[in-house]
């Protein structure tokens, strides 16, 4: 028996077309499915810009007397950000509960952020003091523009999360020592001369 016939015996014409047909059909289904899934991921978003001008640092009242920090809520509704001023400078905290994404409220008398959905409590630094939140509130980038006003970046690239460091395995509800060195320095903290 010559080689050609042997091949034909192993892979008959019927078998070849069977495999080719099913391969084509499955490829069609697979690529249509992938295209259908891709359809649900929009390429253009009409969401609010991730940066905004928060005005001059002087617009924010400094803490007086026993106060350690003054939390300003003027941007909470439109930008979802609190601008907080302490004795050393200004920082921006994202008003997004790290548990499941509700908007916490600021209670100046208790010096705490409290989430209405599941009761997470945060201190002014954003650290979790009670409730189910797994990590501190995110920090937004805050930088000075040439005209002296502050540009706050709240988008994916602007925020600082406690667990962004790849080397850290467990989530912390408090800022670690290494993280503190990052969040209390530019661009997450704007130092003001007293």
């Amino acid at each position, binding site marked *: 028996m010559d080689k050609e016939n042997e091949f034909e015996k192993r892979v008959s014409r019927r078998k070849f077309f069977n495999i080719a047909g099913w391969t084509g059909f499955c490829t069609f289904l697979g690529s249509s499915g992938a295209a259908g*899934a891709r359809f*649900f*991921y*929009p390429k253009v*978003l*009409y*969401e609010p810009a991730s940066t905004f001008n928060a005005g001059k640092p002087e617009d924010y009242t400094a803490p007086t007397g026993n106060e350690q920090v003054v939390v300003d809520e003027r941007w909470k509704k439109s930008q979802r950000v609190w601008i907080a001023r302490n004795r050393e400078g200004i920082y921006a905290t994202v008003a997004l509960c790290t548990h*499941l*994404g*509700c908007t916490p409220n600021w209670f100046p008398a208790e010096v705490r952020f409290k989430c209405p*959905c599941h009761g997470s409590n945060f201190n002014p630094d954003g650290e979790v003091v009670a409730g189910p939140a797994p990590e501190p509130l995110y920090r937004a980038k805050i930088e000075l523009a040439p005209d002296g006003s502050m540009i706050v970046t709240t988008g*994916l690239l602007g925020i600082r999360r406690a667990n962004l460091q790849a080397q850290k395995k467990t989530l912390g509800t408090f800022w670690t020592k290494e993280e503190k060195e990052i969040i209390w320095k530019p661009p997450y903290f704007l130092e003001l001369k007293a």
Partner: protein
Amino acid sequence: MAVNFNKQNDVSFIPSFFKKISEYIKSTTVWKSIFRVGYPDTMPKRMAVMRSSFYMHIFPTKVGIHGMKLKYGWCMGGITFFLFLLLSITGVILMFYYIPEEHRAYNDMKDLRYMVPYGVVLRNMHRWGAHGMVFTIILHMIRVFYTGSYKPPRQFNWIIGVLLLTITLLLSFTGYLLPWDQLGFWAVTVGTNMASSTPLIGYEGPFSKYLGIQIDNDIRFALIGGTRIGPNALIRAYVWHCIGLPLIATALMVFHFWRVRKDGFSGPM
């Protein structure tokens, strides 16, 4: 004296004139083409009625008397199907007034409650019907479990039923966002954020960072069409709620009922 059961000698109070008309109507082609079997006075004829009628053919041709008892089946599957029909009808009517747009949705819902004639009735039928459907489908599942109706040969129908339960819950979830009020908005915020913790395809889930999954390409992004709940999320919830999920539910229901018809009602306990 023997009692005569002969129909001819029965005393009838219907005038013979009407009898003649009725006999004529029953002899016409139109009548015969609609009612094909005739008076179902024998078992084969009764089964033929069930087989040949569109409305009856979703039932098995023959059902044991135990299966008809209310205390056995609770009629919960039937009530769930009835509520699905009710929700489809009231939902379509609500669609005439509701616009799924950021600035209109909440006001349209309020208009339905206070301005649209009978709008409050329709909206409440839809709302309470939806709550009821979740309730009855769970009772139906409990009944099926306690009567052992999930056992062979009905295992596959149990799976279809679980899928239908999931679809019902998803319908409930997507419908919750549509009033665009604080309750629905935050419920959907929380609910879709849970999806971001899915392994591999959620940006906060395990192993996802090895696939390069971020907030703008994970499963939550596909669900709400953005990185935050906004107009995209509203229109997606609307389309899934009004078209996508009901179509899937209908297809699964057809299958569910067809299997009930083929397997018959489950036996007595």
